[in-house]
């Protein structure tokens, strides 16, 4: 026994020595002459590999720069980025979702103004300035006060229904044109044995938000949301009350997955219901089918397609409004980064020709100009491209883009409470009004 303890101490000593040696060895292998840029992202496989490939291509063209890319899971990224930003020591390149979500950081002067650089510098070897490489709408969410603060680099996303074609055929239902047709569709599926035909995983609260956003958009249009934000309108507007009523009606109908408030989207607990054909449709972003390939195989993937949220008869909103973003992740360069030019030169590589094509294969469209020739090869991606740019206007995501973080968080809380039938629609809009007054000021007369 004594021997064991001494042995343990000995081992510990050796380990300490070994650790020190390792450190020394490790640090000397880093070429000190290279410029190192740290870069954080959250995209999982297979996109993580694509990003690493983009990094490699950039480093080949710029051998004096070393990009250290680190992938984080979604939830961990959100925590960590806030801690490092609060401590004033963020990575050189990081992302948020643009617009209001990133405004506090821009106003605090934590990111570089890259307006001039994107107009002057060319994107890779294309001979086209970075600004013109991307579609004009792609810059909207990172333009504030006329200056550009970030760059797109992920994908176009917008809200659509993902549905199982073969199930629809089997039960004789077709794509609904109106919201009431949607409800009848749900009832019909229920009668055919699918107790909870709509897959929903609302543990993280943002999933249920799609139902709030789409119904309110059809009833009141994007103008109403913008007016609420600019404090020219209030949440007590009947549109919002009706939206919450409709949400609760769907819940009472049993449209959503069993126990949806506790299902985890990240773990795919609701997607599993679609794979086992207990659910026939789900309202999420257009990239939902992408996950299905890796999770359920191409056989299932073939059965799946998308359709847009139907119009609501009598609604004031333009039925051709979308809910999403032209770039999803927008990358910013920290003020603490010593290599601004190199960083700005790197980011477009995430959307270079090779990266674009690889993503198109998975149905992800990058907001880059002039990719029609590539789109022809990938009909699914082309469909997404057409759908998005066929929208009249697009409302940005309510939880992380359209509003400041604290407001976005409250909307999610309220939405979850509404869907849990914990509060009435009237109470819900009252809470929202209080929150938005706290975040954006009082209602304008």
């Amino acid at each position, binding site marked *: 026994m004594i021997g064991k303890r001494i042995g343990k101490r000995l081992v510990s000593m050796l380990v300490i020595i070994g650790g020190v040696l390792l450190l020394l060895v490790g640090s000397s292998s880093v070429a000190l002459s290279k410029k190192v840029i740290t870069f954080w992202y959250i995209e999982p496989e297979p996109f993580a590999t694509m990003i690493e490939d983009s990094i490699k291509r950039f480093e080949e063209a710029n051998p004096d720069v070393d990009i250290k890319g680190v992938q984080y899971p979604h939830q961990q990224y959100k925590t960590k980025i806030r801690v490092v930003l609060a401590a004033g020591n963020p990575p050189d390149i990081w992302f948020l979702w643009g617009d209001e979500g990133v405004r*506090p950081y821009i106003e605090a002067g934590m990111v570089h103004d890259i307006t001039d650089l994107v107009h002057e510098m060319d994107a890779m070897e294309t001979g086209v300035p970075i600004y013109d490489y991307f579609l004009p709408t792609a810059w909207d969410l990172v333009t504030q006060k006329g200056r550009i603060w970030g760059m797109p680099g992920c994908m176009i996303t917008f809200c659509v229904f993902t549905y199982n074609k073969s199930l629809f055929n089997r039960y004789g239902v077709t794509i609904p044109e109106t919201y009431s047709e949607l409800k009848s569709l749900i009832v019909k599926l229920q009668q055919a044995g699918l107790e909870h035909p709509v897959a929903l995983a609302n*543990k993280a609260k943002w999933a249920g938000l799609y139902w709030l956003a789409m119904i309110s958009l059809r009833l009141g249009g994007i103008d109403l949301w913008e007016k609420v934000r600019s404090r020219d309108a209030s949440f007590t507007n009947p549109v919002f009350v009706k939206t919450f009523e409709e949400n609760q009606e769907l819940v009472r109908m049993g449209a959503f997955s*069993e*126990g949806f*408030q*506790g299902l985890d989207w990240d773990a795919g607990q609701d997607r599993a219901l679609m794979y086992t054909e*207990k659910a026939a449709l789900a309202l999420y972003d257009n990239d939902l089918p992408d996950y299905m390939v890796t999770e359920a195989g191409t056989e299932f993937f073939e059965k799946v397609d998308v359709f847009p949220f139907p119009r609501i008869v009598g609604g004031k909103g333009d039925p051709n409004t979308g809910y999403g973003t032209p770039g999803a992740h927008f990358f910013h360069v920290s003020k603490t980064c010593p290599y601004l030019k190199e960083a700005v030169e790197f980011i477009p590589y995430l959307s270079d020709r090779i990266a674009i094509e690889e993503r198109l294969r998975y149905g992800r469209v990058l907001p880059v100009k002039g990719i029609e020739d590539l789109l022809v090869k990938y009909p699914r991606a082309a469909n997404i491209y057409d759908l998005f740019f066929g929208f009249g206007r697009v409302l940005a995501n309510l939880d992380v883009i359209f509003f400041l973080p604290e407001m976005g968080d409250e909307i999610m809380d309220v939405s*979850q409470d509404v869907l849990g039938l914990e509060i009435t629609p009237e109470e819900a809009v009252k809470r929202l009004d209080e929150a938005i007054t706290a975040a954006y000021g009082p209602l304008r007369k």
Partner: protein
Amino acid sequence: MTSIKRAKLITGILFMTPSLVIYSLYMIIPVPYALYLSFFRWNGISPKILVEISNWGRILVDSVFRKSLLNSIYIGVACIFLQVPLGLFIALLLVAKHLKGKKVFQTVYVIPLLLSAVAVGILWKFYLDPTFGVVNNFLLTVGLPNLRRPWLGDTSTALFAVIVVEVWQFAPLYMLIFGAALSEVPQHLYEAAVIDGASSLECFWHITIPLIRGVYITATTIALVGSIKMFDLVWVMTEGGPSRATELMATYMYKQTFHRLEFGYGATIGVALFGIAFGLGILWLRLMKHSVLSGQKV
């Protein structure tokens, strides 16, 4: 100063300093820092805004905080009155004379303790899945389909589910603690009592209970204090939801800080949490009339 005294002084300083230094850097400093932050409004980015005691005023009327405090206390109470006694019960089970295969049972019983909270949370998240999880399918198979619930999705069952998982992971700890305590009880006391005609129950009540009292108190104190600051397990399983059914002080603090970007208010909750845990710990010990440092009854 005598040389002995000097030697003691030097030893004292030498031995105490390293612990004190590391402890101060990582543990002591953050608490006053949190207190300091609690007087500000800060989103982690812009300069801090001094708001004096308004955070503290806010926490007093915050209904969500009250709910989280209540939930934390529920869990604390469940730990004291469920986890610890259950541990004791299993320990007693394992020392029962007529039980075979004790070693096997004990080995398996201990395994949940070795898992990290994150692993346990992930495991049980799937275990409790309303459609694919074992619990509901089991109820279906044995003919009790009406008992099935969306355990983590229903506000009326979520906290209960979390408590069950917590018990699953930590009851074995108390089982081991009491197991060791029980083995220290001198056998001859039981033998003497049996000779005097005492029944098993009387033996238990008058010999076992008094002799493991100290251990029981320590165990419940640790359980209470630990459960008040619980975070990992709940976060992975429910994130404090749905609709704050499982909101604990620690999860509420996390959300206020990192989701609402209210670092100042989050710090306030943190200080309150610390204060409450501390206060409850001392209160509980006082209640049990037990002195920590001297290890005897006061």
